[in-house]
């Protein structure tokens, strides 16, 4: 017969059930918040990957464009396409002849419409004289109307009843299409939401992270290896260690100020560039990488070091042949987590001027550029309705990159775990 204190057992069981319930509840709370966040971002943002276009029959008249043969690329870039596109639109509405009415009609089109024609002409310089069917973007307001983000009537409507009629007529005529927005993925920023793209910011962030990685990875490993394996245990090294740990907790905006003061003002490096952005971000990631590397170096079994030494390897050989290869996965994981952190960092980039409006996709790390988090910040600030979906879509893009980077870290970790087992 097992003696049990029934009361005590009941009490203990209840306490355990309660504790489990708390755990499940907090997990549910966290999951629902996360779900709500992702849902609101995706539901707001997915339309940014599409845009509405209107199909126009454009007569490519060299005289209209004011270009003469031979049609060099530069000359074609300089051409005037605006009136060409507008007359193609007016041709759809022969009844509209009044200048004021025509100006209102032309507001259905995005300023990017003429650029679409220009790009077509540059790609097909032999098409002069012919009439082409081309899809040009609608202006942001009608894009938003199509996506039902703006009401057709009510207060503060941004279009006249007549514009609405024209839009409806185009819709009925089957000239309005809903297309995947390549320009959003690959283009640069723009004042006009329907033309704005995330490409410049993605490339800028990529260059900044590349610079950050190239600087902080070798420096971080070298510093961590020296501190962990070679540095004498003196008061000085202890002070350095404590300060590295403290640096990891310093607000990032301070690193931005440091970058502004040193990289821009003392070294005179170009403002707003991914090069300087990457250098500032590497100041931030260095402590993370050093701490992760030291932890993984410390976790290398001392037996391996002893074996190396006893085989007649020098301390440097032991480190490079045996310790670092074993510590590398942990180091890489730490590095990727540090880079993921750097990818989302906004404040230091604001400080070094990466907040400027840059419409170009940077070709090198030395070109002025935007960065993903700063682009989100800029779009979130913009007043136009069209930038709301862009903001959410940009967040989706940055989150995708973060998830990808963390996945890589997880893969590296699990692969090395199975290898050790």
């Amino acid at each position, binding site marked *: 017969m097992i003696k049990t204190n029934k009361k005590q057992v009941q009490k203990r069981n209840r306490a355990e059930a309660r504790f489990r319930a708390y755990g499940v509840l907090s997990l549910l709370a966290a999951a629902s918040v996360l779900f709500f966040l992702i849902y609101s971002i995706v539901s707001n943002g997915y339309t940014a990957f599409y845009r509405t276009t209107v199909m126009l029959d454009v007569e490519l008249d060299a005289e209209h464009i004011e270009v003469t043969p031979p049609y060099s690329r530069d000359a074609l870039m300089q051409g005037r396409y605006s009136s060409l596109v507008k007359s193609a639109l007016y041709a759809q509405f022969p009844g509209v002849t009044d200048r004021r009415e025509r100006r209102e009609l032309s507001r259905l089109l995005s300023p990017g419409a003429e650029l679409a024609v220009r790009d077509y002409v540059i790609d097909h310089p032999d098409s002069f004289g012919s009439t082409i069917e081309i899809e040009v973007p609608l202006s942001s307001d009608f894009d938003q109307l199509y996506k039902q983000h703006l009401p057709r009537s009510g207060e503060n409507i941004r279009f006249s009843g007549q514009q609405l009629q024209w839009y409806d007529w185009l819709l009925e005529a089957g000239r309005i299409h809903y297309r995947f927005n390549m320009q959003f993925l690959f283009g640069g920023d723009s004042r006009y939401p329907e033309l704005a793209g995330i490409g410049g910011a993605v490339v800028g962030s990529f260059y900044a992270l590349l610079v950050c990685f190239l600087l902080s990875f070798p420096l971080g490993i070298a510093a961590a290896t020296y501190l962990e394996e070679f540095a004498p245990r003196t008061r000085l090294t202890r002070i350095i260690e404590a300060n590295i740990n403290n640096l990891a907790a310093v607000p990032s905006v301070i690193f931005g100020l440091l970058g502004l003061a040193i990289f821009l003002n003392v070294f005179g490096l170009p403002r707003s560039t991914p090069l300087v952005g990457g250098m500032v971000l590497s100041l931030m990631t260095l402590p993370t990488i050093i701490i992760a590397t030291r932890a993984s170096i410390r976790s290398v079994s001392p037996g391996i070091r002893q074996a190396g030494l006893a085989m007649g390897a020098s301390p440097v050989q032991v480190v490079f*042949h045996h310790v670092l290869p074993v510590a590398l996965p942990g180091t890489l994981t730490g590095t990727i987590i540090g880079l993921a952190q750097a990818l989302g960092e906004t404040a230091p980039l604001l400080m070094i001027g990466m907040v400027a409006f840059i419409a170009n996709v940077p070709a090198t790390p030395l070109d002025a550029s935007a960065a993903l988090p700063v682009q989100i910040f800029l779009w979130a600030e913009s007043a136009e309705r069209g930038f709301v979906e862009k903001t959410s879509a940009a967040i989706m893009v940055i989150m995708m990159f973060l998830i990808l980077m963390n996945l890589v870290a997880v893969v590296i970790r699990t692969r090395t775990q199975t290898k050790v087992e």
Partner: protein
Amino acid sequence: MNYVMTVDRTDTHDNVIGQMQKSLVSEASESRTDIKMTAEGVSVFYGDKQALDDISIDIHSKQITALIGPSGCGKSTFLRCLNRMNDVVDGCRVAGRITLDGEDIYATNVDVVSLRGQVGMVFQKPNPFPKSIFENVIYGPKIHGHANTQDDIEEIAVRSLKSAGLFEEVKDRLHAPATGLSGGQQQRLCIARAISINPEILLMDEPCSALDPIATARIEDLMWELKENITIIIVTHSMQQASRVSQQTGFFHMGVMAEVGTTEQIFQNPVDPRTRDYITGRFG
């Protein structure tokens, strides 16, 4: 005849024991070959703490010398002095003189790397490099420049693994990770790795304490084979192991070498009361 007997009886008891010891020692030294390594008055300090006090011992060539004693008595510390593994320990200081073939291994002109190339070591816990079996046995020859061509490397790998009695078991998976081997196989791989650079002396720090009796027996057989060419010094907790494999035994007690002699003498006729107590199991 009677007269002679009487004279013998008149000898003091102490003298008789002294003569017995002398004869034992001389008998042993006749069978022994030359002396490979000598420690004279070795003391080791960890900071302020003295771990070893005035240790002296001669290590005979191509024999197995066992160092026994209770935990914390300093036998491993002494072993690690012999290939200067204590160098890397912070605050460790070695006094006295240790010679290898008459040459002081702590002299300033001695290169530690070359010393460790001649004095190999096997540790308590099998510690293969987390690489392939093949890479483990060729690492030493590679960094010491013993093997330059691929043929040399393979020949050394096979020879070392064969000498360690491991080749037959692993010949089909030379490039598999060494960490996938069993504990006994890992330890034999560590021995193969140690002998891959043809050391003259092999230090073994409780090489069987993490192994089962069967794996232990294999390692002990292996030590008998290796003894043909290599001088072995083994630290062991197991007195049975010391008596099975060694020709000479040193008994450590609280940082001093309480007694050293032939294994036969130490186990059958210990002089020092501490040795006697330890061997008869009164402590330890």
